[in-house]
């Protein structure tokens, strides 16, 4: 082999490879790599593909359970939902590309996660996303959000997957580092699962889908480095999506799978052809030999290096049964998609890449996959003021005007309705959407089974920054609670772990603590983690994001008729709280002090976000949380509840207001709420204590629900009744909030859309 380009320290640094890693490559190969091989190693050993900094920690997550068919290590996790059906689901980040080119970055994020699902043989039936942006006051952040939302819509709508839910958070630390985490879930028969394995020596290796171009070269390495002023110039690294082609690819792949002639299949995502070939060989302990002259190309004069590293979208690699290729190729011809035999499975365990018969790269598959470097990076607890600054409580005696505080809180983009966003997503295609967006969890039915799947995505960077261990637990607890409120039993989770630079010991410490917290919580709720994604280097000019683990929780509602909404449904229903009303602790004191120190008249923008950032992390008892959820689910299963709503962001007052609002055909309605005096009114109304669910029920069922709560040792308190047109909250004898539900709803519903020029 000829080494065309001399490998210098500069070239290593351009490939994000350290000197030690280079020596390791030389040792593995027993010689110096050529330029193409160096490129292959650089993408496969990048943080994005190798999980080299996170692997040792991820092992601590629980991954097994009675429902789990496939845990981490494949394209997506799979769980059994009974009746012969299984679901595949996964979440993945596309943060870096979405900052550089919001529309295409987000669109290709959706495209990538959808391929991860249908490459396993499952038809995607639901998409969700977890998005984080800087505050909308800045035009730059509005532009990023508008582009990201349009990109998700553009791809998902055309592909034909309903985007049924998710979360959107605004926070200064995401200004230069927006987070775009895309989740997808697919449905299939349990006996029709496909894996990314290149088995059967001699079997043909077939390339299908889009032609290869120069787009996205080094996308994986880009996602493994921080941003600086030059990042704009990385735009060519972002791929361009073609959802129409992906839709054809989906139909063709599912049809081809039915022939029984496909033995393994994997999408070409990050690191494209390189990753799919060596991973498929690695999993099957086989080798793969391909010749690049057969690879369909969109541009002329592409070098082997470029072809191997291209991240052109909408491509798949499959291995067919020898002698049955034609059955497969015929189906791709029907869908007018390129499908070409580019190589074969070998027994030697090598990835051998030829160009017109000349070997241009030859690397053991295992060296690129299982034997990639693993780092035990140094960890150190951050020193200094991670905890928020508490302002001096000078104005303690001032009487707070809660009645004017609530409307302003509801208008905060963090609490306000996300309708402006989700109405751009087709959330009804496939006719399975039982719960329209805006509820606690997304709910889609499984046709022909009488069951439904509930999904919730939750993260809380603000808490994780202060206490990564507790913050991660709170996120898991909230995700489960959202499912339970919808009537679902949580079954399993996927995670997207968004962090800063792992080479900083304090970031690695945060990561490790998050994993421990998540592991404990997932064990407590019996929800194994079946896979996910790690996104490091979310930093621009050294400024990192809050550690932001996002949990994607999946549960089952059985029968589908037990799907429970989160709104007040009818006049006269009793309103109750399951779980602790308020705690007299450090957190509660901080809620009081910071609210009193707040000067609403002096803050023109987002009052809630301004306030909430001053709060510490509330405490959480996994045991209480579990009991609260168990009580709620028991009551739903006995058909005792009319509605249930997770009480978290914005506290009790905000949750009660949300329950008043209209939803589809249901008009808005008021409530008459009485809270006991004698405890801090501030934390009573706005404290964000976890482990609380507000439920409504017919008054006749009060005794039965109370009994369930008592049997589970859960606090039960009747708060009042659904009544009238106003939300009225009394504490003791004093009315502290009295607002027409419709005017609160207007503020809440129009807040985000009002910040964009075009109203409709």
């Amino acid at each position: 082999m000829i080494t065309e380009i001399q490998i210098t320290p500069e070239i290593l640094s351009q490939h994000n490879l350290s000197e030690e890693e280079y020596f390791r490559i030389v040792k593995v190969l027993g010689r110096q790599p050529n330029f193409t091989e160096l490129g292959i190693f650089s993408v496969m050993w990048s943080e994005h593909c190798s999980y080299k900094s996170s692997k040792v920690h991820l092992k601590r997550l629980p991954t097994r359970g009675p429902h789990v068919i496939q845990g981490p290590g494949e394209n997506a996790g799979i769980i059994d939902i009974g009746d012969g059906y299984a679901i595949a689901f996964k979440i993945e980040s596309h943060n870096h590309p979405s900052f550089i080119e919001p529309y295409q970055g987000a669109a290709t994020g959706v495209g990538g996660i959808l391929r991860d699902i249908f490459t396993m043989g499952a038809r995607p039936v639901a998409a969700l996303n977890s998005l984080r942006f800087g505050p909308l006051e800045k035009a730059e952040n509005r532009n990023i959000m508008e582009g990201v939302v349009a990109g998700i819509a553009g791809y998902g709508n055309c592909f034909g997957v309903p985007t049924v839910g998710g979360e959107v958070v605004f926070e200064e630390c995401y200004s230069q580092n927006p987070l775009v985490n895309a989740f997808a879930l697919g449905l299939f028969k349990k006996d029709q699962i496909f894996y990314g394995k290149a088995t059967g020596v001699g079997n043909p290796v077939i390339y299908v889908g889009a032609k290869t171009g120069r787009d996205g070269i080094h996308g994986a390495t880009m996602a493994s480095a921080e941003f600086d002023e030059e990042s704009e110039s990385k735009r060519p690294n972002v791929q361009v999506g073609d959802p129409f082609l992906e839709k054809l690819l989906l139909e063709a792949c599912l049809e081809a799978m039915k022939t029984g002639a496909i033995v393994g299949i994997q999408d070409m995502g990050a690191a494209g052809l390189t990753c799919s070939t060596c991973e498929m060989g690695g999993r099957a302990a086989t080798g793969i030999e391909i010749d690049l002259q057969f690879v369909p190309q969109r541009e002329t004069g592409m070098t082997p290096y470029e072809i191997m590293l291209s991240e052109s979208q909408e491509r798949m690699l499959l291995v067919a049964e020898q002698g049955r290729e034609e059955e497969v190729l015929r189906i791709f011809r029907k869908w007018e998609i390129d499908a070409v035999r580019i190589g074969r499975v070998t027994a030697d365990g090598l990835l051998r890449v030829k160009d017109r018969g000349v070997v241009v790269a030859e690397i053991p598959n295992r060296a690129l996959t299982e034997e990639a470097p693993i780092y035990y990076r140094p960890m150190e607890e951050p020193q200094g003021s991670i905890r928020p600054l508490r302002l001096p409580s000078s104005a303690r005696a001032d009487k707070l005007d809660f009645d004017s505080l609530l409307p302003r809180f509801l208008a905060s983009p963090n609490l306000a309705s996300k309708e402006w966003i989700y109405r751009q997503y087709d959330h009804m295609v496939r006719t399975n959407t039982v719960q329209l967006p805006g509820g606690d969890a997304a709910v889609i039915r499984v046709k022909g089974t009488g069951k439904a799947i509930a999904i919730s995505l939750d993260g809380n960077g603000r808490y994780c920054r202060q206490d990564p261990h507790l913050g991660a637990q709170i996120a898991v607890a909230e995700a489960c609670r959202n499912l339970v409120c919808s009537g679902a039993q949580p079954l399993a989770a996927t995670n997207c772990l968004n962090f800063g630079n792992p080479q900083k010991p304090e970031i690695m410490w945060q990561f490790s603590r998050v994993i421990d917290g998540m592991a404990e919580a997932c064990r407590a709720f019996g929800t194994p983690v079946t896979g996910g994604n790690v996104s490091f280097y979310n930093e621009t000019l050294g400024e990192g994001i809050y550690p932001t683990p996002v949990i994607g929780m999946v549960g089952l509602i059985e029968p589908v008729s037990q799907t429970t909404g989160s709104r007040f449904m009818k006049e006269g229903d009793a309103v109750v709280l399951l779980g602790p009303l308020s705690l007299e602790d450090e957190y509660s004191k901080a809620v009081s002090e910071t609210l009193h120190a707040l000067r609403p008249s002096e803050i023109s923008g987002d009052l809630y976000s301004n306030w909430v950032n001053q709060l510490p992390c509330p405490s959480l008892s996994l045991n209480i949380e579990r009991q609260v959820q168990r009580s709620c689910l028991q009551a739903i299963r006995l058909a005792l509840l009319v509605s249930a709503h997770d009480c978290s962001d914005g506290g009790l007052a905000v949750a009660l207001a949300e329950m008043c609002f209209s939803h589809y055909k249901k008009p808005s309605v008021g409530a008459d709420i009485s809270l006991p005096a004698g405890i801090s009114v501030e934390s009573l109304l706005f404290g964000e204590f976890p482990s609380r669910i507000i439920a409504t029920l017919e008054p006749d069922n009060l005794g039965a629900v109370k009994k369930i709560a008592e049997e589970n040792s859960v606090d039960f308190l009747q708060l009042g009744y659904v009544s009238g047109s106003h939300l009225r909250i009394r504490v003791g004898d004093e009315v502290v909030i009295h607002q027409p539900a419709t005017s609160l709803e207007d503020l809440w519903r129009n807040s985000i859309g009002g910040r964009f020029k075009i109203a409709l």
Partner: protein
Amino acid sequence: MKFGVIIFPGSNCEHDVYHMIGKVLHQPVEFIWHQSRDLASCEAVVVPGGFSYGDYLRTGAIARFSPVMECVQKFAATGGLVLGICNGFQILLEAGLLPGAMLKNRGLKYVCQHVSIRVESSSTPFTSALQTGQVLSIPIGHMEGNYFCDDHTLWELEANQQIIFRYCTPDGQTTEAANPNGSLSNIAGICNRSRNVLGMMPHPERASEPILNSSDGLMIFESMVNALVHS
């Protein structure tokens, strides 16, 4: 009473229509590939929604050249029932089976939501089970649903009672605020002069079971079944 559901590359509501006809209405139903040169002896044809050819040109502009569209033209000319939903409506416009054209939504964004539409005429095979003036709750999901035509065509549509659905408030008022996309005269659906071809932007198949929050759309298909039974 066999229904045919046409699949173009990029159609994505074909399974939804298929499910609704087969599993909810319990009628025979078959997919028809866009390259097909016959309609497999179907007695009614549905052109479903989606993004035929990615909508990369004008919506529906490429799909109308598919071989199957020649059959659909002939079928329609002989009085066969043809229902175009969303992208299907756009294809029927491009194919000249219905007059007018679609512009981008007034808000320049894709809009997915439940809307109210008023039945303007029950004297079609698609609306015979409905009352004129009845308000249906049926979802829309489109980027180009802003119906447009010249004044003369609009006059003709009105004069011949070809406007079948209009966007309205839940109590039946066809106000500007109830118009989700800016369409001319709040038009949500129109039929041809012979009343056997209907195009509509709302998706009746998405409102065909109580679990989907509305089953108002089912009545459109029930009307079609009735028409076929009686013909």
